């Protein structure tokens, strides 16, 4: 059934026409050219993003051959979305992001709940002690892997003869090989995982665990943005790795997706620029309408600002201001204080170059713990 559905999607994608006309302000959709422009801007402003050409046989002819999709690697994800346990105390941190005031549809479905806005260090050990046990891994491999973190921290017990059986079932009798002679048990110059605690400024992930009594599993994600021809919006794809750099299973990836969206808007699908790769993706069916509302809001602010500036005469420190806005997410406070976006000189409203920057902020609400919105992290 799923295979048929995917075939259907592929055919539909093939048949749907390439959007030619720029209408991003009207309905939030963009043309491939605008996708490239916005991607160029994103990659220029935040060099962690870069263009990829992907599998040549899967190249889309409406995009330049060397600009098929955007990718950023190693995006940190410090906590699980499921670990952001939702308690009554968090209710005041919850805000309805109503975009309805501009479009005045009055439709509830147009509102997005932004949670954890004012969250600080509150949710530690006591609140949700059993976090680590919630990982619903069926297979013993991963369970052993989790225990292994402690083992790894316990020291450099290289002399241990028995390799843990649970780890690699088919290889339970790997001999402890002669490399031991060459190896690190006497190598005083190898930084042990635990030894690096000595530093003052930064901490290794495992130290944070110990310090807080709460397992902080730093996962990393490779995030890709493709252009979806059918929905005429960008589409986001995720490939995750756990703290041991083992690829995440779908179930593990869904832990990083806010509960409202897991299994509904986020699914595992074949990545369009590879023949075989599967990745988690946020389904783009609602992207255009949400983007439209965000853009309308921002555009209003941009125009007002530009007019004000024109009236005042001169364009003071424009570059500075833009930088400030782009780096503002530090507060974690959402979208409705973004109104003051300075942009280009003329009163033309928001430029399409900002599309992907805005898009990332929207995606950040779906995957709250993955720092896809890299505008502050680096």
């Amino acid at each position, binding site marked *: 059934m799923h295979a048929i559905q995917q075939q259907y999607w592929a055919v539909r994608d093939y048949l749907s026409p390439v959007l030619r006309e720029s209408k991003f302000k009207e309905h939030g959709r963009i043309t491939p050219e605008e996708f490239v422009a916005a991607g160029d801007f994103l990659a220029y402003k935040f060099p962690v993003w870069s263009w990829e050409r992907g599998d040549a046989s899967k190249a889309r002819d409406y995009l330049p051959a060397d600009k098929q999709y955007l990718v950023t690697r190693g995006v940190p994800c410090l906590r699980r979305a499921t670990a952001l346990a939702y308690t009554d105390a968090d209710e005041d941190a919850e805000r309805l992001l109503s975009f309805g005031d501009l479009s005045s549809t009055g439709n509830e479905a147009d509102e997005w709940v932004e949670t954890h806005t004012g969250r600080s260090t509150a949710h530690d050990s006591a609140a949700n002690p059993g976090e680590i046990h919630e990982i619903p891994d069926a297979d013993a491999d991963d369970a052993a892997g989790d225990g292994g973190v402690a083992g790894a921290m316990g020291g450099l017990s290289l002399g241990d003869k028995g390799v843990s059986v649970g780890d690699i079932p088919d*290889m339970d009798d790997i*001999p402890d090989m*002669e490399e031991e002679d060459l190896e690190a048990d006497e190598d005083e110059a190898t930084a042990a995982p635990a030894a690096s605690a000595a*530093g003052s400024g930064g901490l290794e992930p495992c130290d944070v665990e110990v310090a807080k009594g709460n397992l902080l599993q730093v996962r990393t994600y490779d995030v890709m943005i493709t252009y979806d021809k059918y929905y005429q919006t960008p589409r986001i794809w995720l490939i995750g790795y756990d703290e041991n750099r083992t690829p995440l299973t779908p179930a593990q990836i869904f832990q990083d997706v806010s509960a409202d969206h897991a299994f509904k808007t986020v699914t595992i699908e074949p990545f369009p620029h590879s023949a075989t*790769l599967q990745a988690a993706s946020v389904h783009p069916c609602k992207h255009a309408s949400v983007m439209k509302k965000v853009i309308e809001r921002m555009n209003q602010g941009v125009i007002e600002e530009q007019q004000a500036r024109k009236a005042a005469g001169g364009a003071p420190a424009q570059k500075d201001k833009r930088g400030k806005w782009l780096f503002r997410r530090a507060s974690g406070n959402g979208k409705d204080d973004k109104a003051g976006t300075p942009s280009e000189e003329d009163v033309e409203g928001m430029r399409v170059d900002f599309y992907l920057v805005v898009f990332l902020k929207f995606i950040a609400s779906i995957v709250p713990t993955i720092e896809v919105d890299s505008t502050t992290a680096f």
Partner: protein
Amino acid sequence: MPIVQFAPLSSLVEPAFWHALTDLKIDVLRLDDAAVPLTASYAAGRSVTDRETGRAISLGCNLSLGGEAFRPRLQLPPHSVPVAGVFKNFNTIEDFKAADKTALVNAVTDEIWKSIVGERSTAQLSRFLLITFADLKKYKYYYWFAFPAFVAKPAWEIDGEWKAADAEFNEATLETIQKELHTNPRPFFLVRTSSGKPELAPVEEYDTFFANVPEEQHTVAFLDPSAAPANPGWPLRNLLAFLRALHPAATARVRVLCWRDTEPPAAPGGWKSRFGVLHQGAEGLLAEKPAAVGWEKNVQGKLAPRMADLAPMMDPTRLADQAV
């Protein structure tokens, strides 16, 4: 004097690599288990600020291997440097277990040593080894990396401790280095400041570049994949071995810059690079190939292979199960 401890490289294998390996195994290698060259890459170490605690958390010291690793001219991630390696796939798990790993890693260290004393080149300093067994039917990949690093005897020690780079260099110098590496990433380089202006050069030009420069202005720098404040990354080990082997007189004491700033700092003075002065006793000269370490440990911290189980992301039946 504390001994310098280096943060080992850890492998980060993108799922795309396992797909590429599957194709290579089925379409090209078949039962051939000859060694194949491949290319990985690393970039400057990164740390993130935990928004909830405000503390900096170092991300791993990673060597990443992507889906294009087998291609001769691959497109590297931005700001990364390529690392050449040797890949060897075994056809059965028994072969994989029984492989003479000492001999394999020795072959790699021989090549590194030859490139040092023979070619006097830094191009092969971070050469690595990857051995695999691919259980294609079960989508399981057993793999073991080795990142050979020569052991310095006696060990390197540091004067005082690692400090921020901007405590040693002025802003202009750091900005120059940042700009230079931004356009042209390189794994190892030399820095000198002649008449106030910083200059960079490849390590191969050590003699000429430092010819008329006072010793306290010699700086050896490398792109540091580690982000831990007190631990320089693994590539520095072989760079130091290189310096000791080729420039023994000048390198009993080395000023080292661990370059970690891919981007200019957001706030003034926020440079993440580290600086330290390392020294080694005169008896640390290298006449012949020193011993090497560097097999990657598994998740339990033991010397054993790792396994990537991609069944959840590759097995069609399991993918169908979770699809809605």
